[in-house]
């Protein structure tokens, strides 16, 4: 409950929304509300509801794929447009990002990607797909930068890597039971040309507040031919420097092990190379 909430705005245009947001330092953007309405944040005095602005398109076919900011997670699960894109990866990720259908019906894509819910699959997949956030009146910014610097303003869409020859993606997640929070989660996006990895984004989710790129893993892959040995080496050597602290109920070294298992699993799914 937001105890200090005084105003609810439902702007008709983006420009109006921008003005309302700018006019009050206690104003926040309201999407699905799954986080802000339960935050008990007493600095929130007004909410600017952006769900009626038509920002819910999903365009994934062409050269400039994007997700509308206020599309709901369940739209990603259901929309036919999503099924063809990287084999339906976004659909699967959205489904796993929130076990509750009720919450998938309200949670928005932008909220999920920006804040990385506790299950965090979509957020990690978006990072692996090079997500860039389109911010009203401010242009685009990289999701990774947003994780560092935060973001103000209204996100209107999330741009993602187009599909292409040799480009594949896969993820692997481990949780105690199907719908509990993942203990570890990894996503691998790779581009292979003439048998060599020419580009990759390997992402670790579920550890820390946001998903992060595992650049050491990416460096090992770069220029190499993907095979079982490479995947093993990348998952082992690429994670050598990664330190994960103990969490209540989970030790750091076990989590490190799980990250290794999921990086291997994600690479395996992305490349189609299955170890013995």
């Amino acid at each position, binding site marked *: *409950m*937001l*105890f200090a*909430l*005084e*105003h*609810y705005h*439902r702007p008709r245009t983006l420009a109006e929304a921008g003005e309302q947001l700018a006019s009050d330092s206690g104003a926040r953007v*309201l999407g*699905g*509300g*799954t986080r802000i*309405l*339960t935050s008990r944040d007493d600095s929130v005095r007004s*909410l600017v*509801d952006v*769900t009626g602005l038509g920002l819910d398109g999903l365009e994934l076919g062409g050269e400039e794929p994007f997700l509308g900011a206020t599309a709901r997670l*369940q739209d990603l699960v259901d929309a036919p447009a999503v099924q063809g894109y990287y084999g339906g990866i976004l659909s699967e990720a959205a489904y796993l990002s929130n*076990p*509750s*259908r*009720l*919450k*998938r*019906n*309200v949670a928005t894509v932008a909220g999920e990607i920006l804040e990385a819910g506790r299950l965090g699959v979509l957020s990690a997949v978006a990072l692996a797909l090079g997500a860039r956030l389109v911010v009203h009146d401010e242009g685009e910014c990289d999701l990774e930068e947003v994780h560092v610097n935060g973001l103000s303003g209204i996100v209107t869409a999330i741009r993602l890597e187009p599909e292409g020859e040799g480009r594949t993606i896969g993820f692997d997640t481990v949780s105690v039971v199907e*719908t509990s929070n993942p203990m570890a989660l990894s996503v691998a996006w790779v581009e292979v040309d003439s048998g060599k990895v020419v580009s990759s984004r390997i992402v670790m989710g579920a550890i820390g507040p946001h998903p992060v790129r595992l650049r050491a893993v990416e460096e090992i892959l770069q220029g190499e031919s993907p095979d079982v040995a490479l995947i093993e080496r990348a998952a082992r050597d690429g994670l050598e420097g990664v330190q994960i602290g103990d969490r209540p109920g989970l030790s750091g070294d076990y989590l490190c092990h799980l990250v290794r298992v999921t990086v291997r699993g994600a690479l395996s799914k992305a490349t189609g190379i299955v170890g013995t």
Partner: protein
Amino acid sequence: MTEFHLNGQLVRVDSPVNWSLLRLLREQRWWGTKHGCEGGECGACAVLVDGRAVPSCLTLAHSLHGKRVETVEGLGKPGDLHPLQEAFVDVGAIQCGYCTPGMLMASLELLRRIPDPTEADVRDALTGTLCRCTGYVKPVEAVLLAAQKMQEELS
């Protein structure tokens, strides 16, 4: 002033800005919609807004202007139960009954979308409405039975 349709009736309410739909309903003595966490996790407060099952605790009352809200009170009447309600009663899917309205509304959305769901579809629809009594066995059975009955009625 917020105007919306509640189970087919146009209602006008003037509620405080921070009220959720759940709070609004209960303050108006619509007791069917339950509350178990006010964080969207338990689903006891599920209602349909424009046909979608949502946690009413995560829906601001003011955001409902012009929308259609359906609650368990709109589903059936004494002696004239909705097939879903009938099935929940018949198969013993109701134990304490606290999660029942939420489960019914989540199932209603499902059956409108997929009239002949698989068990996996039902389990997905009910993930989000937590139940601590039944182990979900009989609720799942009830939704499948209701679907079957509703299909038979149509044909």
